[in-house]
């Protein structure tokens, strides 16, 4: 019994960075993200007897974190008006890479989060849940209380809006050799740069 608890503690500790980042991208606030993950861990610990085995174990953990984050969003609607300020709480993780490469990574992250910040919350939350957490459209629909078709539509709109960001578009083109389905219009401006 004690060994199982120790094993669970080690397992949770190893997943903390991804849980924290998930919560941060949904809440965009460091302290809130830490609190949410803490609450989620308490919940996981209390219900550790019902944790699924195998691959479902990790997915279950992220679902708990996501649900805790969404509950926080639901209970603090007023706070959500401060999205712009919250976005500034982002801090670059220290890296052991070369300074130039680290600068490139940091700039990419800054541009990505700024682009996410430019999205309305109705688009940003599904994007994070789908493309970072890895939930299916149906799971997202259940989580946010919308229909799967609505989620699909919002994801499409979000990708369309993000495609207008020239920095992201050029990064995708450079790294994937054509990750954009459609060429950018010549008049598109870098919306992120101005935020």
């Amino acid at each position, binding site marked *: 019994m004690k060994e199982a608890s120790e094993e669970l*503690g080690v397992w949770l500790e190893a997943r903390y960075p991804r849980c924290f*980042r998930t919560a941060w991208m949904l809440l965009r606030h460091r302290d809130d993200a830490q609190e949410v993950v803490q609450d989620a861990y308490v919940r996981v610990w209390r219900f550790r007897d019902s944790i699924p085995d195998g691959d479902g174990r990790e997915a279950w953990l992220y679902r708990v974190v996501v649900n805790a984050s969404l509950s926080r969003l639901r209970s603090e609607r007023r706070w959500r008006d401060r999205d712009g300020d919250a976005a500034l709480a982002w801090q670059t993780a220290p890296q052991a890479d070369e300074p130039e490469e680290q600068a490139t990574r940091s700039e990419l992250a800054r541009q990505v989060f700024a682009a996410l910040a430019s999205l309305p919350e109705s688009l940003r939350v599904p994007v994070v849940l789908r493309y970072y957490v890895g939930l299916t459209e149906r799971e997202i629909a259940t989580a946010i209380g919308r229909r799967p078709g609505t989620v699909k539509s919002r994801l499409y709109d979000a990708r369309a809006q993000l495609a207008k960001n020239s920095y992201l578009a050029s990064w995708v083109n450079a790294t994937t050799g054509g990750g954009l389905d459609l060429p950018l219009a010549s008049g598109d401006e870098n919306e992120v740069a101005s935020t």
Partner: protein
Amino acid sequence: MITEQALTELLGAAADEIHVPAGASGRAVERVRDDVATVPDLPRRWSRRVVIRVAAAAAVVVVAVAGVGAVIGTSNSERSTATSSTAGSSSSAAAGQAMAGSAAPVAPEKGAAGGTTSSTGQGTPGTADGGQDRRIVKNASISLSVSDGKVGDTLERLRTLAAGYGGFVQASGSNLSGSSPNGTVTLRVPVAQYAAAREALTAGTYGKATSISESGSDVTAQYADLGARLTALQTSRQTYLTMLSNAKTVGDTLAVQQKLDDVQQQIEQLQAQQKLLADSSDEATFKVTVSEAGAASGQPQPRTGFSKAAHDAWDNFTGGLQWLVSISGGLLIALILVAIFGLAGRIALRRIRRPIV
């Protein structure tokens, strides 16, 4: 359009740059251990499914209670009869006669009937099954319309009528001034004379009967129950008296005396109730209202044309509703309750499912 794969890679790469507070993971797990060890279990919120099931169960219980209540209410309704008629209607008159004949009470006659009593055989005491005397509390309300200036005279003749049937005037009142003189007199006559008195009042001798309503309530079972309880209590009283005479100590005497007092008090209460029932069933009550024919006595003028059509339509509509309610019994009430609970549940469900974003 950014492809899904590209966006996944982009977000993954960006997320790696989010600085996770140093040592936060270890502290989080330690705090979890501490919290779980010291804090009681978190209050578990009811899931949506549980809420729906509880609401459905509550609705079923309420509907079941309403249905059972309707059934019990129907089966326990007091045995009573009532007729209401307007003078001149042959069917209502027949009903009144039938009732007067079939529900004739058995209470002992108090005095000799007047000459008019010989005109009918009604009022002959009847017996219930098993030979037990039946006791019926009978009431009637009669409205009489008389010629102008005859209200006072008619009221006086009605008092004489009550005395003639061996009864008396319980109450009377009149307003002989103004444009619509009227008066009311409440007569009590022996129930054996009920049919005869009714016949006399509605025959036209005292005025034209414009409306008649009658009611009869069988209190035989209630009366018999009181009698049985009285007999049992009297037996108990006799037992206590014997015990009292045999009591050896002061304590025993006081204890038995206390019981005896209680029994005596109950006997007196039951006797009073029995006497009230006996009085009510011994004498029928007639409430007679007298008014002038031409006065504004509340008699509506016959409707014609559009007014009549609209009035008839409204009557048919309300009559239809009454018919629906009467034939549906508890079902309609149950359906209404289900609709109310369903609506409330739907609203609650919408609130629970309120989208986050």
